[in-house]
């Protein structure tokens, strides 16, 4: 990260209340960074879904575990990093919710929506324990919704939804 970036960092409890807190913060950061209302909504939703994954599937609502949230505002983009203390997950094992057999499944759309709403989506296991998810949204890019978005693979267990 460059020295020019503005950084905001918070630590959240593994509760559903943290989801709204994180989303509100994302909206504030993105508004300040100059994203329009529609882009703010999309980034906010990507953060919403990422924090749900961290709290529910990563930390499994364990009150002893925390979720780390960082916003980096850079000249060309906003980067958002979410860290949990869970066992990790296999991104390649997450089913495609658009497949005919999955369309009527109740869950399994979270990561798909994250990918659709940001320009880059990266997942990596942390050295000690846990997973870090990075969301990147560039300024001045098309508002066109990208079905599935860009993504990179990593390793782990316990696929989130």
């Amino acid at each position: 990260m460059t020295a020019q970036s503005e950084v905001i960092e918070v630590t959240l409890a593994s509760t559903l209340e943290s989801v709204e807190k994180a989303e509100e913060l994302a909206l504030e950061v993105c508004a300040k960074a100059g994203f329009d209302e529609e882009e703010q909504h999309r980034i906010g939703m990507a953060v919403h879904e990422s924090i749900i994954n961290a709290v529910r599937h990563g930390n499994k609502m364990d009150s002893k575990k925390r979720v780390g949230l960082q916003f980096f505002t850079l000249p060309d983009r906003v980067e958002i990093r979410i860290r949990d203390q869970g066992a990790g997950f296999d991104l390649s094992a997450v089913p495609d919710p658009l497949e005919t057999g999955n369309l009527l499944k109740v869950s399994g759309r979270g990561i798909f929506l994250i990918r659709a709403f940001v320009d880059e989506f990266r997942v990596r296991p942390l050295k000690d324990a846990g997973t870090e998810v990075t969301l990147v949204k560039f300024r001045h890019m098309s508002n066109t919704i990208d079905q599935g978005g860009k993504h990179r693979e990593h390793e782990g267990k316990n696929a989130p939804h």
Partner: protein
Amino acid sequence: MSMKAKTRRIDSVTVIDISGRITLGDDLAELRQLIRGLLSQGQKNILLNLADVTYIDSSGIGELVSGFTAASNQGGHLRLLSLTKKVQDLLQITKLLTVFEVYDDEAKAIASFSKATGA
């Protein structure tokens, strides 16, 4: 704003007017119980009016799908009315617009159930 849901009956159709945010949490469980309760009472034609829904997340979308499947499994129908642009976008990218019957006009939505049930 948390979710609120009110029901009203028009002909053979139960309209559920939903407002606020349909997101993971207690509200979602209440919506599920409301729909299951209607189905168990034999009210199998359900129209979800989403005009005042400000936000829906992946769990909320899942709940709509769950209600749709529950109604279908009991010989009923769950349809959607008055999607906001945000909800419409979400249902489009998740291909669920190919699953749900969606209406902009309440009278037409109500009439569609008569055709479906032959009433």
